[in-house]
Every structure is written in structure tokens, then in C-alpha cells.
């Protein structure tokens, strides 16, 4: 009988942590953490002694020293190969930490700077006729209207195209579609904006700016995302459901609308919400299509329309007399955007978890 691992460890003679190479010793389980924390403390102390202590520097040097420390320690006890493994593992973990640092810093800054600019006025009044101040109601209304129009355009086209690709399409057209949808996800957002501008300029003349132009530009960005996610969920609807439906004499279109789509419903909704979250914060395409305006305009077919992202950009770029107040409003708009994006993402996940059809 093979003894459980703990038993073997206990039975093995305890070796000193300074055992020689090749002696087959093993570092204790806490070794990587120990090395890292020790290195952190060491670097913190040295920096404090030198008088240029910052948390960022302590973490960076702590990770480097920790990698060297664990390598040296493991090399003495476990040999060169294990030492390399441990050092690289710690380096990879450190790289992950480095990659997450911007996210933490960004969220912290947006929240702490954004709350200063938030007020009741920010949400309920526009900036019409107000010198260097006012609210962002026009931007919030504009964001919602433009995004809603973009979704109204993109969702039917995107889902029908995904149905075509998954249920009907075959041969070269299907392959071309798959390929070009992938390519389309790579269109820069500013190019989508220029496309919408060019399209409308041909019909309405130069200098045209309307909310719906922004929606068209955003659709170019949204459609491929909707298709990708819809295709993914349609693919996992099992074929035996379709076959059972055919066997009952149901025509194909009814099979799709009554069997396939309901089965995939949760996934489709999730995909649409995530796509919406992706485009709601777009700035560049709206900068060239919907323009900048101080008063609330809820009609996408007439005149300029403000939007939260463009509002934030504008408050930063051309601050009023009271610079800091403008910057505060820019951060407040950024915070509002991030909150909207997060809410959309969370709801999307909840919808998926709550309503997904168990497929066996």
C-alpha cells in the first residue's frame, strides 16, 4: 500500500535547510511566500534607511530580491533545476502582479477623483448657458440614446447573421463571413467614425452632426462583437434538440425561433450586454460624428448630441476658468461610465447564471 504523501514526508528524516545539493531536500511549503515577504521587508527597511521609501519601489525591488532569494535558497537545498523552476514561477507571478497594478491604480484613482465631481446637479441639469460649470445631463441622455440606437441596429443584424453562419451557411460564403467578421473586430474605432461621417456627408453635405451618425459608427464596432458571442452560444445548442424538432414535423425556421433561440437565450442576452458595455465608452467615433453641445438633445435625428466619453474629453481638453472643477467633472464622467460598464457586465453574468438552460 502506498502511504499518503504526508506520511512519507513525516517518515523521511528531517533535513537541515542548508542541506547540500543533490541531497534531495525540499523547501517548506511557505518558502515562496516567506522569500517574498522577507524580501519586501528587507527592501522596505533599506529604502526607509536611504530615505526614498515608496510602496511602488518596495514592491518592485521586493519582487526582484525575492526571486534571487528563492533561487539561492532552493539551489542550496533542492539543486539547480528546482531552483530555476521556483525562480521562474515567482517571476511569472510577479509579472501577473505588475499587470494587475494598473487596474487597481486606475479603479482607485477614478473612484477617489470621480466622487468629487459627482453631485445631484451633475445628473439632473445640463450645461446650457452656464459659464464654467453645469451638469452632464445632456451627456448622460446622449450616451443612452446613441447606445440604444446602436443596439437596435446591431442586435437584429448581428443575431440574424450569426443564425445564418451557424444554421444555414456553408461553403465559401460562410468561410468568408467568419473570416471577415474576425477582421471587422479589428477596425479602429476612429475609422468607424470617419465611415459614418463620410456616409452622411455624401447625402447631407459637409459639417453634418447627428446622434444617429454616432449610432451607425458604433454599430460597425458592435455588430462583430454580437456575432462572435451569438455564434458561440448557438454552436453549443445540441443537435439532438434540432433533430427532435424536425422529427415532429416543425419547419426549420420555427425550429430556430422556438427551439434554438430560446435554448441559447441567456447566452445571447449576455453577449448583447457585453457588446453594449464595450461600445458605451467609445469616444473617438463620436467625436467626429455627434459633436459637442451643452444642451440636452434626445432626438438622434436632429442636431448635435453630447455623450459622456466626449464630455469627459472636452472637460479635460478645454477646461473653464476653474480648471480643477472641470477636471473633477471629467473624472466624474469617467466614474459614471465605468459604473455603467461594470453594472452591464455584472448583470450580464447574473443573467447568464440565472437563466442559462442546462444542456445535457
Amino acid at each position: 500500500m502506498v502511504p499518503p504523501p504526508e506520511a512519507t514526508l513525516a517518515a523521511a528524516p528531517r533535513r537541515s535547510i542548508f542541506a547540500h545539493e543533490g541531497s534531495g531536500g525540499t523547501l517548506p511549503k511557505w518558502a515562496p511566500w516567506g522569500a517574498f515577504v522577507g524580501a519586501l521587508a528587507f527592501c522596505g527597511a533599506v529604502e526607509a534607511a536611504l530615505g526614498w521609501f515608496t510602496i511602488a519601489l518596495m514592491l518592485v525591488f521586493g519582487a526582484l530580491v525575492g526571486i534571487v532569494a528563492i533561487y539561492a535558497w532552493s539551489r542550496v537545498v533542492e539543486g539547480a533545476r528546482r531552483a530555476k523552476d521556483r525562480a521562474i514561477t515567482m517571476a511569472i507571478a510577479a509579472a501577473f502582479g505588475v499587470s494587475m497594478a494598473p487596474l487597481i491604480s486606475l479603479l482607485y484613482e477614478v473612484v477617489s477623483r470621480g466622487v468629487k465631481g459627482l453631485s445631484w446637479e451633475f445628473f439632473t441639469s445640463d450645461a446650457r448657458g452656464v459659464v464654467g460649470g453645469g451638469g452632464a445631463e445632456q451627456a448622460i441622455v446622449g450616451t443612452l440614446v446613441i447606445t440604444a440606437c446602436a443596439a437596435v441596429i446591431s442586435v437584429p443584424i448581428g443575431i440574424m447573421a450569426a443564425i445564418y453562419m451557424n444554421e444555414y451557411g456553408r461553403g465559401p460564403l460562410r468561410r468568408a463571413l467568419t473570416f471577415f467578421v474576425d477582421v471587422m473586430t479589428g477596425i479602429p474605432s476612429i475609422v468607424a467614425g470617419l465611415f459614418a461621417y463620410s456616409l452622411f456627408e455624401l447625402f447631407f453635405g459637409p459639417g453634418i452632426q447627428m446622434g444617429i451618425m454616432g449610432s451607425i459608427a458604433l454599430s460597425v464596432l458592435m455588430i462583430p462583437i454580437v456575432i462572435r458571442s451569438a455564434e458561440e452560444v448557438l454552436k453549443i445548442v445540441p443537435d439532438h434538440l434540432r433533430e427532435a424538432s424536425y422529427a415532429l414535423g416543425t419547419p426549420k425556421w420555427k425550429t430556430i425561433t422556438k427551439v434554438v433561440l430560446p435554448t441559447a437565450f441567456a447566452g445571447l442576452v449576455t453577449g448583447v450586454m457585453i457588446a453594449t458595455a464595450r461600445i458605451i465608452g467609445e469616444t473617438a467615433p463620436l467625436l467626429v460624428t455627434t459633436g459637442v453641445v451643452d444642451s440636452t438633445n434626445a432626438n438622434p435625428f436632429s442636431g448635435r448630441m453630447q455623450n459622456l466619453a466626449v464630455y469627459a474629453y472636452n472637460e479635460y481638453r478645454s477646461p473653464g476658468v476653474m480648471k480643477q472643477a472641470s477636471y473633477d467633472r471629467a473624472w466624474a464622467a469617467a466614474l459614471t461610465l465605468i459604473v455603467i460598464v461594470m453594472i452591464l457586465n455584472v448583470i450580464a453574468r447574473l443573467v447568464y447564471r440565472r437563466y442559462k438552460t442546462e444542456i445535457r
Partner: protein
Amino acid sequence: MASYDTTTNAGQLLATASGGRRRRGDRIFSRTALLAGVTILALLAGVAVFLVTEGFPALTASAAELPKHESFISYVAPLAFGTALAGVLAMIIAVPLAVAVALFITHIAPKRVALTLGYLVDLLAAIPSIVYGLWGIFVLGPAAVPVMKWLEEKLGFLPIFAGPASITGRTMLVVGLVLAVMILPIVSAVAREVFAQTPRKLQEGAQALGATRWEMIRTTVLPFGKSSVISGAMLGLGRALGETMAVAIILSVSGGVSFNLISQANPSTIAANIALNFPESSGLAINLLIATGLVLFAITLATNFLARMIIARSEVR
């Protein structure tokens, strides 16, 4: 009689027998789906066609007619250079980190937390670019000033760190860092997917031969994922090339061509140049900007095309 296809079966024959109405429904539905599919292709073609139409006047105008009194080529060349510099810099920073992030999530972190960590990385992709721009100019830029000063003092002999170091942090290096953060989730998503697909028997075989975890990763996971990582890197590059707002906000622009990453004088990028100048432009200046947009479209299209080709080829294998 009805024409048979692969889905024809007894049930459908019955349905056919009960009248043409249902088949009409089928026809309408499948045509609509086809129409939606064709719309996508038309849309992509439309983007190209309208950009060409609107950019054409600037492409054919003589240097004297154009707003800056220089030919289109000499106007767009430094912008294209700046675009490539920012994109490549972001890619160089992001790809090693993205590979490490993907390895950490798929092979090192405990399974319980791996999913959550994946969400965190995806969160980076959900943050709007305008927020990255504000963060770059107000937070990262000022924080990078002492680092860039240090780089100038210690590594100033390298052309890329020649300085004089910026005192505002609005440099190409900071732009590259911010773009790197923005494309990291894209590259790591591709890498994560392929690393997770590494055949178990290869990994277990390596470990059975006594390989440590790193040796297993180096000999099985990395070679298996190599081509996908390359294409993921190119997808990220495509995104970085087209990124507009973060660059427009952060970069202090002087035009010209310079490899200097830490100075106040930088070449602009195509996308940022459009965003900065479009709102105040009119007439031929608009056409000129749209023509540069066409160049950007061509560059990103080529990059994405190449990336997708690599993916498609490695999937066939």
C-alpha cells in the same frame, strides 16, 4: 415537389404535404438570415468605399492646395511612423507580460482562483479608452517623470533615451505603457485559450520524465502555443495602432520623426491626429484627415489579416 436537402426527413415531408405556407416561412427566414450575413460584408466594403470616396480629393490634390502645403505622402509619413512606433512599443511591453499572465492563470494559480483572475484581466478590456487617457495623463505620466529622468541620466547614450526628459510625462514611453495595458487582455486571452488546450498527454509525459513545472511549460506548452501567441500579439498590435483617445490625450506632439521615447517632442499618430484636428477642420482638411484614416484602415486591416491567417493555418494543423 420540394427540392431535397440534407435536412429533409419524414417530418419535413409531412410538413410539405400540409401546404406551401410553412415553406414560405422557411424561405423568408433563411433569406433574412442571408441578407444579414451579406450586410456584414457590404458594411466592411462600405467602410473602404466611403473612405476612398471622401479621401480621394485629398489624395489627388497638389501640395499647394492642401492645408499644410505639403504633399499627402509627406504629411502622412511621420504620422504613420508615430503610429508604428507607439504600436510596436506597446507590443514589446505587453506580449511578455501577457504570456506570463496567461501561464499564471492556466498553469500556476490554483484552479479555484484562476477563473476569478481571468475575470480581472478581462476587466482591463472593459475600461473605456477615455478613462485610460485620463489615468495616463494625471496618474501614470507624473509618476513616470522621475523614472524617465533616471533613464536619461543613466542610459542617455541610447538614442531612445536621449532626452531631454519630459517634465510632464506626456511622452511616447508613457503612451506605450498605457497602450500595453490596453492590449494586454487581448493578447493574453488568445494565449490563455491555446495554453489551456495543450494536450494533457504531452504535459503529463514531460512530468513523468521528471521535468519540473517550468521545464514542462518550456518543452510542451510554449512550443504548442507559439503560433497563436504570435497571432495574438498581432491582434494586439492592430488594436494599439488604431487606439485614438489615450494617445490624443497623453502625447505631447511636435511632428517630425524621432525615436526618442522620453522627450516632450514626439511624432503624432494617425488616429490621434484625426481626433485632435477633426473637430476644427473643414473643407479639404477634412478630406485630408479621412485620407489618413484610409491609410490607418489599410495598415490595421493588413495586420489583422495576417494575424487571422496565422490562426487559420495553425487551426488546420
